[in-house]
């Protein structure tokens, strides 16, 4: 009886993991990762991508004209940092313009777009939310640390854009769903 129960549980776990991966494995490598809002979360995602062995190039300030077909997937690490924007010498308005132009070009190039928000509640606020809305509207998939979606913003935006949203408890847990998104 115990053995049957264990086998059933194992089968269900396997089936769940396979179906999740099949549903989400849409993105192609290599990826290009950029920062939307110039927070240091960008650095954390570079570590996450390296550890998940996802081939990528990184440019926190890439502009639309720098985007080309050599990258198949655009990863947006979204969340505004006034300190980061200041250090980069760009205004919030300019960052929004860069984001919108980048997303338009990514669509022209038929790139997959994945939004990552890993800074939690402290990486929210008016400046971040404006950028988040732009990113979510043009994404194919989003992964967020759950504390960043306490007010349901990401859930609502994902429903609106009809995209899958995966919530994780911690940044380090974002590696598995992100890796599963790649073919």
């Amino acid at each position, binding site marked *: 009886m115990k053995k049957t129960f264990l086998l059933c549980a194992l089968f269900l776990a396997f089936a769940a993991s396979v179906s999740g991966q099949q549903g989400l494995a849409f993105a192609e490598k290599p990826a290009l990762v950029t920062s939307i809002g110039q927070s240091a979360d960008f650095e954390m995602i570079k570590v996450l991508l390296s550890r998940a062995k996802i081939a990528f190039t990184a440019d926190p300030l890439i502009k639309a004209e720098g985007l080309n077909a050599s990258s198949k997937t655009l990863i947006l690490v979204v969340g505004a940092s006034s300190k980061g924007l200041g*250090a980069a010498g760009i205004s919030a308005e300019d960052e929004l313009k860069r984001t919108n132009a980048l997303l338009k070009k990514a669509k022209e190039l038929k790139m997959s777009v994945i939004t990552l928000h890993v800074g939690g509640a*402290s990486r929210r606020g008016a400046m971040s939310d404006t950028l988040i809305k732009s990113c979510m509207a043009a994404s194919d998939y989003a992964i967020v640390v759950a504390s960043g979606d306490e007010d349901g913003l990401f859930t609502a935006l994902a429903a609106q854009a009809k995209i899958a949203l995966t919530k994780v408890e911690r940044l*380090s847990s974002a590696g598995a769903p992100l890796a599963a998104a790649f073919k």
Partner: protein
Amino acid sequence: MHTRKSVALAAAALLFFCLSVPSLSAQDIRGRYLIQHDYRPSDGLARIGWLSDYYPGLLGTPGDSKVYYFEGSKPGGTLFIGGGTHGNEIAGIMAAVLLIENLKVEAGRVIVVPNMNNSAVSHQEKESLLPSYTTRGPAWISIQSPSGQRFFKYGSRCTNLAHQGVPDPAGGYVHPDSNEAPLPAWEFRNLNRAYPGRIDSGLTQKIAYAVTQVLIREKVDIAFDYHEADAGGRLANMMVANPKNIGTAAAALFDLELDHGLSLKLEPSNMEFRGLSHREWGAGTDAQAFLTETPNPGMVENAPPDVDVVNDPKNPLGSRVAKHIYSTLAVARVYGESNPGRMILMSGLPAYEDLASQGLGPYLR
């Protein structure tokens, strides 16, 4: 009658003498100004030096402070750890003390200065210009250790006004290399606005100069400055890294989450804001520079005057100390992986979970 009057006068003179001599401090035979910290180094200690070994102008001043050296039997890199930049940020001081009392180094070297601004623990004057969080807190904290109750000095954010030697600038403080607007005048006595330091200015600037010399002369690979912040504020639970080593910080924070479930925020130094340790150490020396901030309940804006900075249920001192130490260990490990010849291997420290849950007591000598 005459004798009685003499005795009374002698007693009064003795009382006046006792009251005028600070109970905390004295000067040693070589003129070193001593604050009597009760730190009991582990058997792994190689030697003790002084900041004045790096800038003799500190000798005999309240800015001089002990430097503890731990050396491994195998070659490797050098890690510098500084606590007590701000005397009221007690977890930084106690993390350094915990290291001094437990550390063994297997490879490389570790240099610990538990009270980088020793003048800041000499006072808690309620200076009217300073924000209340900078001087709030007990004069001492006490911790029960296996050998009995231990006492550690809790101080103020800045150098004692009486020790600085130069008045606070009337128009506000501007770092000599800064183009920014003046900061409040008392920031002239804030060690973490004074780097890389200078010898033709106040005591704070001289201390900063000596610390910078430690990093240069000891060829430090990794330098940590332990701080605390308002428990509910933006800075709490954060690692700040010089941009040149932000990748090391990111990888270390990732490991901290995986290994201990500890999530710290990450920020790069603002290179326009001059005088901060992580900014100036990183730019002016070969060291990879980091600063960690833990949540101190005594630094919350409206904290009561009798706030318990040791046994706070949400942020007990043990967990704050564990965050500093294990952030450092994670950085040292990541650095060693990229620089195999400069590995720093340490042992003798309590497990993160034990330190966070049991507090410092069991791990002090």
